């Protein structure tokens, strides 16, 4: 084994079991896009620059549930998802809450069960506007 140098930790991850409740693989994946956006807004509110990052999602189906393995380099985002999904934030809730900010979803790949699939996110820096008056 090639041990990691000091300061490195395992890639943050979490597994979520979500009741199907009429959802499909695509709608669950879209819900994760909403949840990611909400999580980044909550945990990295004071971003000084645009954040681009990739998370990995792998979905599988059982009789009544979806199992979602989620991997992301940002530990705080994993913490947000663990807290809110275990508290019952539904895909519908996430979609409703995400209406509070602008987002654009671009689908470029097929989604296959049990296949690790990358989710690309670009969170633009919060824009600040200032007004000034000038007198002569």
């Amino acid at each position: 084994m090639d041990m990691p140098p000091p300061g490195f930790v395992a890639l943050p991850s979490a597994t979520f079991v979500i009741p199907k409740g009429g959802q499909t693989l695509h709608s669950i994946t879209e819900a994760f896009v909403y949840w990611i956006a909400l999580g980044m807004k909550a945990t990295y509110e004071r971003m000084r620059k645009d954040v681009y990052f990739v998370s990995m999602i792998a979905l599988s189906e059982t009789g009544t549930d979806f199992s979602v393995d989620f991997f992301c380099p940002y530990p705080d985002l994993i913490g947000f998802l663990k807290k809110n999904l275990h508290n019952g934030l539904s895909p519908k809730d996430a979609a409703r809450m995400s209406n509070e900010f602008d987002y654009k979803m671009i689908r470029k790949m097929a989604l296959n069960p049990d296949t690790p699939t990358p989710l690309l996110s670009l969170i633009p820096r919060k824009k600040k506007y200032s007004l000034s008056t000038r007198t002569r």
Partner: protein
Amino acid sequence: MIAPAQFLRPRSSTTTSDFLNFLGTMSLHNDPGRTMIIDDVETVKRLSPPQWWKWFRHYSDEDVIFDPDRIFIKPDKPEEYFYDYEEGA
């Protein structure tokens, strides 16, 4: 937006996110039984990030694309990654 195949370039795997993107794209394009032919391994080794090269050795030896237990990050610098595989071990 360019086609997903753009993410299959080893040289682009310099950050954790780009590496995950590479692995995910590889997984989606994976066709069991297909042979990967590399003409000039030394050039690939020279031009690719060292952690990606360790992944490639692991992939060559065990045909594993995504093994999350081997990926490590720095919490204060999440885009810096380490791949746990010792060449020739």
